[in-house]
């Protein structure tokens, strides 16, 4: 029964994908959308069942489907593991997934390849489920690479535009760099413990006495590189902002709510490993903090509404990594969940805006949409308040916990995190003010067409806004349902984090004040002073550096892409030809020798005889004189 249900959970999105691929055109747009959505909704329903089951039974379900790959020292089977962690992830993957599918029915209705879109989305959900419920690292890796593939397909969904294709390619390759790290980590774990199964790995690692901490550290670091690639951390984050080339629901689903959290999922999954490698944890925390700060600074000056959200995503992911690095997995996961709610809401809201403006993404050409699109405005406001960390919205609770944890470990990390939070508040409200307040700055034509989006779009927005509002309830400081729920997964936390003293209240107050400061600055700049960001060409100074994302893309281009291409050209034009010339040279030498040898045969009998005499002398001397 459980096996069958798990298969239903896993395979319905695949079925939806297959139907949409093979019959999508015949089904028609609406119907293919419904098929796509339904398949995810079914998965969501099954997930709910499992959720109910696990909260009662508290026993993980492990299913082995068939043997897959044989390695000399262990066998890898294709198995599924449904425990608290994976079911939690499934909940918001399929839940938010369903909402976004629903949203897409309306959003993508004008696109001629809607069935392909839904096919890809379904495929993505399938792979995401595989990633989450795989019982060993390699099954997880199928999903891991699979979601990367879907991300590639969806970023390049409008494939006639080669720039989008470049972005897609970049995403895939960046992910693959991480994947190599993940594979290396898998190899080392396989070598050390002869298993890749999560449960046996956990017992092996926690039961082992003399662990090779060096290799363990290397493995953890390699895995972390994998997580960096997928979850867009420094130095592999640059693909995520570019990934906004895809349709907005994709940005919401893949590049905000689900796929990019895979790295966090993986690290949480292997928390027992990372707990043993404090050095790697430190690296994770530092990288997370830096990413949060750097991405936030870039986000301050972006003018593309989706780019702002993308950098905000990177920044938030950085905060999650900060929490992971500090060993506070529950906190990170809490933020993953709340972030999924409000970021999905923000993306979908921005999608609604873009939809209304006929594809315009530049905030300088928006403004004053508050009246035209009240529902979008309200929902986005809620989500923005949530992400800014205003009490009592969901983001407040999760972000605050991260900051408290950071403060307990290292005050520097706390400062960085807080600064990033203030910036978040600023740029989010910059976004809100520029988009919804003041006068409309677009063309007259657009102004006439301004309208609230249809209910299929607004309904998911409302649901997500509600979730962003109340999402914090799952882990209130005093009485955390989430921590209790996840307790079997993680090592018992011994720290005194839930004793609410004045100290914690003080920190909360500081964070809240910071958020208000950020909002205040944004208000004074964009409402009071009524300023609008300048044209691209007029941006100067630090903001130019920020606007150009610290020139990281350019730096990567110069450091990696160009050299490799130059090397390729060099190999092709010089090395290849010279090796070839070497081979041909050998042939030429032979040829030349034979040509020279030919000259010996000049037809002169006298010469032949002379040679003959010499040869005769040589032979005779050898035979008789050599001894």
């Amino acid at each position, binding site marked *: 029964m459980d096996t069958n249900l798990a298969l239903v959970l896993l395979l319905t999105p695949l079925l939806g994908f297959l139907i949409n*691929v093979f019959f999508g055109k015949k089904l028609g747009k609406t119907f293919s959308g419904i098929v796509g959505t339904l398949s995810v909704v079914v998965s969501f329903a099954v997930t709910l069942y499992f959720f109910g089951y696990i909260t009662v039974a508290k026993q993980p379900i492990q299913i082995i489907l*068939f*043997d*897959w*790959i*044989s*390695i*000399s020292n262990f066998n890898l089977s*294709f198995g599924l593991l449904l425990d608290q962690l994976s079911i939690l992830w499934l909940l918001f993957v399929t839940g938010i997934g369903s909402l976004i599918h629903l949203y897409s029915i309306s959003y993508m209705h004008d696109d001629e390849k809607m069935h*392909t879109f839904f096919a890809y989305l379904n495929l993505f959900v399938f792979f995401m489920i595989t990633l989450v419920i795989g019982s060993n690292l*390699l099954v997880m*890796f*199928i999903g*891991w*690479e*699979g979601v990367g*593939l879907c991300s*590639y397909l969806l970023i*390049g969904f409008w*494939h*006639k535009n*080669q720039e989008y*294709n*470049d972005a897609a*390619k970049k995403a*895939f*390759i960046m992910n*693959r*760099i991480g*994947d*190599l790290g993940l*594979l*290396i980590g898998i*190899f*080392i774990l*396989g*070598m050390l413990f002869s298993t890749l199964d999560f449960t046996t790995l956990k017992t092996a690692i926690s039961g082992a006495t003399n662990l090779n901490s060096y290799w363990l550290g*290397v493995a953890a670091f390699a895995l972390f590189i994998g997580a960096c690639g997928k979850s867009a951390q420094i130095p592999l984050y640059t693909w995520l902002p570019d990934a906004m080339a895809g349709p907005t629901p994709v940005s919401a689903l893949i590049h905000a709510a689900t796929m990019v959290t895979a790295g966090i999922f993986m690290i949480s999954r292997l928390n027992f490993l990372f707990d043993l490698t404090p050095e790697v944890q430190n690296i994770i925390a530092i990288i997370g903090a830096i990413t949060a700060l750097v991405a936030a600074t870039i986000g301050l000056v972006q003018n593309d509404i989706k780019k702002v959200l993308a950098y905000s995503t990177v920044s938030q992911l950085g905060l999650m990594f900060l929490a992971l690095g500090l060993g506070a997995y529950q906190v990170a996961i809490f933020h993953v969940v709340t972030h999924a709610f409000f970021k999905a809401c923000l993306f979908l809201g921005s999608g609604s805006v873009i939809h209304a403006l006929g594809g315009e993404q530049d905030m300088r050409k928006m403004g004053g949409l508050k009246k035209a699109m009240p529902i979008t405005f309200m929902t986005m406001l809620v989500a923005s308040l949530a992400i800014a960390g205003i009490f009592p919205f969901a983001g407040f609770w999760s972000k605050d916990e991260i900051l408290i944890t950071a403060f307990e470990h290292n005050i520097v990390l706390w400062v960085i995190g807080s600064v990033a939070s203030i910036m978040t508040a600023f740029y989010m409200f910059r976004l809100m003010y520029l988009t919804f307040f003041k006068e409309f700055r677009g063309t007259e034509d657009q102004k006439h067409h301004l309208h609230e989006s249809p209910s299929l779009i607004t309904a998911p927005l409302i649901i997500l806004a509600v979730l962003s509002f109340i999402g914090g309830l799952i882990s209130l400081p005093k009485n955390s349902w989430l921590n209790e729920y996840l307790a079997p997964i993680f090592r018992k936390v011994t720290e005194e984090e839930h004793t609410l003293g004045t100290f914690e209240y003080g920190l909360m107050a500081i964070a809240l004040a910071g958020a208000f400061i950020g909002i205040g600055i944004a208000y004074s700049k964009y409402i009071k002073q009524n300023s609008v960001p300048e044209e691209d060409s007029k941006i100067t100074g630090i903001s130019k550096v920020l606007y150009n994302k610290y020139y990281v893309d350019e730096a990567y281009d110069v450091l990696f892409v160009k050299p*490799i*291409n130059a*090397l*390729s*050209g060099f*190999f*092709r034009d010089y*090395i*290849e030809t010279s*090796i*070839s010339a*070497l*081979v*041909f040279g050998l*042939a030429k030498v032979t040829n030349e020798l034979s040509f020279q040898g030919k000259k010996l045969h000049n037809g002169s009998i006298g010469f032949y005889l002379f040679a003959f005499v010499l040869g005769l002398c040589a032979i005779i001397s050898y035979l008789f004189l050599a001894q």
Partner: protein
Amino acid sequence: MNVSLLLILLLVGAFATYLAGDKLASKVALFFSLAVLGCSIVLLNHFNAGENISFINQWISQPNISFALQADGLSLAMLLLTTALTPLIIFSSFGNEYKNAKSFYALILFMAFAMAGTFLAADGLLYYIFWELSLIPIYFIALLWGNGDAEERKTAVVKFFIYTLAGSLFMLVAFIYLYQRAGSLLIDDLYKLDLTASEQLWIFLAFFLAYAIKIPIIPFHTWQAKVYQKAPTVGTMLLSGIMLKMGLYSVIRWQLPIAPLAAKQYMFVFIALGIAGVIYGSIVALRQKDLKKLLAYSSLAHVGLIAAGAYTLTLDGLRGAVLQMIAHGFVVVGLFFAAEIIFRRYDTRTISEMGGIRSQSPKFTSMFMILVLASVALPSTFNFVGEFTVLYSLSQINIWFAILGGTTIILGAYYMLKMFQHVMLGETNKKIFADVTLNEGLTMVIIVAVLFFFGMYPKPIIDLITPSLENILTQINRN
């Protein structure tokens, strides 16, 4: 019933095809190749049931040479690859018109005969004869039915022919020496030889030269790209799909167990060469202008990894190598066929002249995409199974090997996706791209299905090859 039947059937098929005349040739060839495929599946069943399907008979008494065809799991796996790809290749060529078709198809079958013989032969001389025999048909196929400038083609093909022949001669020398020592060339007798370390080194190097040119391992690869480019697609498929695997198979079957000491001592050198091939091939592939040449270099990268896996001398390495050989065989045939499909419509192989096919033929694009993904070893395709196993074995030797070899994951994705982007995506092409025909589609679907099926369930093949690989491994570790 034994394996000699297969060879006879292939040979008869070749003659029958030639006699059938130009019109019927392709169909007769297809019929025979399918019959052989069926026959080999039946044989596989017999083998799995524990029957002895080997065939050993004294051939020449002085010197002591036997007509020995030995089929174990490894041979059978490679045999199946040959017999499965041959009908596929023949079938894929149905869209083309060849002049003097009867000779063309007869040569294909003859080549399949020679390659099958190579995979089966258990006697050094017999093996050598089959090995060299396989060179002749591909020489004519590439020379007579190839494309491009005739003079350039001749240069490329003759270079290939002489190059591989020259390499093989060193192998012959090694065999002669081994015969002096063993008094027989039966593989089991050769395994039993107690050669000194220096003898083994020379023999190993002689074999290596032959195989390195055939596989090809850098820096012996220069024949490859040009020949792939100039040969007709069928020839390229035969070369890359099956013939390369002859070299890799021979490494596992002949080179390593006969000279294990040398293999162990210089393991790092040869692994490094293989991995250098991976990186070099990937980087060179990045900026190729010709689609077939790009695929040729990608093939170079992949076989480099396979060779590196084989030279690790671990069960994982050997197993991964064999799995990857089979997987690569299918993928590369598929990719070259895709190139051919484009060529049939656009009459060009230059990447810059393509683009925008996706809007014209989504079906073809999907299949091409899947092949590209399989080629970059996306998990759940067959290639991933092989590549993962090989990389795992490399990581057991030295983690840096795995990291460097693993760059294929990144670079492979880079050049394949770049190629895909420029070939398939972008603005709709002005030239007309007719949708794939039934037989084109069918060929692609079969390949894709094989890749997915074994990607998710490689167990049958793993079970087939593992015992014989373990045997070989005990031979390698005998002293």
